[in-house]
């Protein structure tokens, strides 16, 4: 596109007479972005830093898959491989997945969806981002100094006694990012309770808001446990005491209980917002109200509650008592019930809908299919007898990647495409977007489905070499990873391209319901010229004529 038409497009935006300047034009200096209390600008700050961390973590994964192309150790040695998978885990979990949807799309869309001008505590919101960036710097520093080799799970006594890598620097980074999470959680909770538009009762809220609210409760209650656990670990490492060291009277399982008490709810921090996104996209592109709205809302709360009861399923073979294992196994089966209700309801929403396969819809449908698959294998893992066989193998790796990558990352991309017009005022190129979605879906399955088979056949996780019998499946998996990489680079390309050259977007390009679509695109700094009324029911898509 020529510079002339660029200028025309930009001027067309600015020349709109009765419209206030959008939040994007509210100051052009870097400092105006770095000191902004505007939830929309903070969302973009998060988006930029999260994307950077995603590609760092993905690079670590690429190196790992490259090594696993062949049975022997020909790309990296064992020690480096340990550092790679630790870096991949730490960065992807804490620097990407946990903040992703809440801090980017929760920040941007939640106040708009409830008809508020901003979050309850805008300055705290900015502090959250600085804590996240600061913690991220610690993590990068640890990486540059050689990394950590303990695995993202920091099991003791290896991490507390024997590892001589930069454990404490990494712990510091994760700790600081944890405080960012807690602050964000508090902010969202207070916002949803106190800043809803007049008439917007709880059962008029979009399901995305319910999901972010439940996620925030988990953030506030679970993250402090991680913080104290990492502090205890750091103290143990520095002062050579033995809370987690059996030789000194401690217990490594104490660490595991504390660690997983956070880390299991953490995976629900990653998936609940993704479910919320699916509940926004699917009704919109099926032109149908969500099926069973109340059940969906209660299922979100149910998932959040039960998520705190199941952490012991990560410890079935670590020496936990058999009775505790049985209890945790039973509770883990229970968490599948509300999740299944949601999958049934998304399906029922699609039934007899008028479906259009736009890019957001492709991502949302991909999310449902892959989340279903990953959740199903979670049930296999929750069965004690099966878990004994497949724990610490690639079966587990496949399971959680199906949910976190097939689920959460696809939902993140779906949200990015769905709200892209609202955030940037531009339309992305639809054909490229659909192509990328399909490439990602194909690449993802090629990467991770073979891993189920590898795990079932006994290939352990966190190993850089394997018996030659496993090579075929590993080659398939690595090939899939290459395709997946292409798939992820495509959105980076065309989305950035659309910021400058995309067609200007109308206020509501999808004809979606929801208060965020009833304001200008992009929204003005203060969100609404006049605070809207919230008493309309959510998902106001007209029912089909029979």
């Amino acid at each position: 596109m020529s510079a002339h038409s660029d200028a025309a497009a930009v001027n067309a935006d600015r020349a709109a007479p009765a419209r206030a300047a959008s939040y994007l034009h509210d100051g052009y200096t870097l400092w105006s972005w770095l000191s902004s209390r505007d939830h929309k600008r903070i969302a973009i700050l998060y988006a930029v830093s999260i994307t950077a961390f995603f590609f760092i973590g993905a690079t670590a994964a690429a190196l790992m898959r490259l090594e696993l192309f062949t049975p022997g150790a020909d790309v990296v040695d064992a020690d480096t491989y340990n550092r790679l998978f630790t870096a991949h885990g730490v960065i992807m979990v804490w620097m990407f997945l946990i903040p992703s949807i809440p801090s980017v799309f929760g920040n941007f869309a939640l106040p708009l969806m409830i008809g508020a001008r901003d979050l309850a505590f805008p300055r705290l919101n900015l502090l959250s981002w600085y804590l996240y960036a600061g913690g991220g710097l610690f993590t990068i520093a640890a990486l540059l100094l050689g990394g950590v080799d303990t695995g993202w799970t920091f099991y003791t006594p290896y991490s507390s006694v024997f590892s001589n890598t930069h454990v404490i620097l990494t712990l510091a980074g994760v700790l600081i990012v944890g405080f960012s999470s807690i602050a964000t959680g508090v902010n969202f909770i207070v916002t949803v309770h106190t800043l809803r538009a007049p008439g917007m009762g709880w059962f008029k809220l979009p399901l995305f808001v319910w999901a972010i609210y439940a996620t925030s409760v988990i953030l506030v209650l679970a993250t402090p446990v991680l913080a104290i656990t990492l502090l205890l670990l750091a103290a143990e490492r520095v002062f050579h005491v033995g809370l987690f060291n059996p030789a000194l009277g401690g217990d490594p399982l104490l660490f595991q209980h504390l660690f997983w008490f956070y880390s299991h709810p953490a995976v629900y921090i990653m998936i609940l917002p993704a479910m919320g996104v699916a509940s926004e996209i699917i009704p919109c592109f099926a032109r149908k109200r969500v099926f069973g709205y109340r059940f969906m809302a209660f299922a979100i709360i149910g998932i959040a509650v039960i998520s705190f009861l199941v952490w012991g399923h990560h410890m079935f073979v670590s020496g936990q008592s058999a009775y505790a294992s049985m209890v945790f196994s039973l509770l883990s089966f229970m968490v599948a019930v509300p999740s299944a209700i949601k999958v049934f309801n998304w399906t029922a929403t699609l039934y007899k809908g008028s479906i259009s396969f736009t890019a957001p819809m492709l991502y949302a449908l991909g999310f449902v299919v892959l989340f279903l698959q990953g959740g199903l294998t979670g049930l296999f893992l929750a069965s004690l007898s099966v878990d004994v066989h497949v724990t610490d193998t690639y079966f587990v790796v496949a399971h959680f990647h199906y949910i976190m990558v097939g689920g959460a990352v696809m939902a993140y991309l779906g949200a990015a495409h769905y709200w892209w017009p609202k955030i940037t005022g531009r339309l992305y190129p639809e054909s490229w977007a659909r192509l990328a979605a399909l490439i990602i879906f194909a690449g993802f399955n090629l990467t991770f489905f073979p891993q189920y088979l590898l795990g079932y056949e006994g290939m352990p996780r966190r190993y850089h070499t394997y018996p030659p019998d496993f090579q075929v499946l590993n080659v398939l998996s690595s090939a899939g990873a290459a395709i997946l990489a292409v798939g992820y680079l495509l959105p980076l390309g065309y989305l950035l391209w659309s910021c400058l050259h995309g067609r200007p977007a109308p206020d509501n390009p999808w004809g979606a319901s929801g208060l965020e679509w009833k304001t200008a695109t992009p929204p003005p700094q203060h969100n609404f010229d006049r605070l809207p009324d919230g008493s309309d029911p959510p998902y106001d898509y007209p029912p089909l004529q029979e």
Partner: protein
Amino acid sequence: MDAATPDSAQDIGRQAARTRLGMWAFLGSEVMFFGPVFFAYLYGRFMWPQAFEAASRGTDLLCGAVNTAVLLTSSLGVAVAHLLADRGAYGRARRALDAVVLLGLAFLAIKGYEYVQDWREQLVPGPHFHLQGAVNQAGAQLFYFVYFFATALHALHLTAGIALMLHCRRALRRRPGRPTLRRLEAAGLYWHFVDIVWIFLFPALYLAGRAL
């Protein structure tokens, strides 16, 4: 940009409600922050009961009890300061906050004295740790690890509380009004929470194994 300036009594009330809810949600997270430390204590008490009771006797009961009284009184001071400020008696409220800060500093001083004593008695975990007469030195050291970790973390929170109270005291003089009152209430809630943590730390760390 903060939320729009309040232009009605309803808005003022809503802002106070937001601050209150925000602080309570934060305190909820703090419960989950300190809680696991108590679990670590219970773990040690369950696994090595004799060692933990013997180690408990090595703490200074007088200092612990006096410190508890100091902190409880400081909580009274905070509640009184809020009550006075709410009534508009800013001068007396500031004097109440003076007392709170002094009591907080007194707590830290007594704690510091205890730490020095512990160091002299070789009760600091590390290569020089030795509890007189204990068979299970590792178990006793575990107690003292929990003791130092918990009390240091608590003292850190108390220091933050003192800083908050000093800030509120200054705000009461410079710009007395609704926002300052909100901040004082929030800081007060935080102070009371730190007090409650100590209310549970005191019996755990000082009162076990005393009856001999």
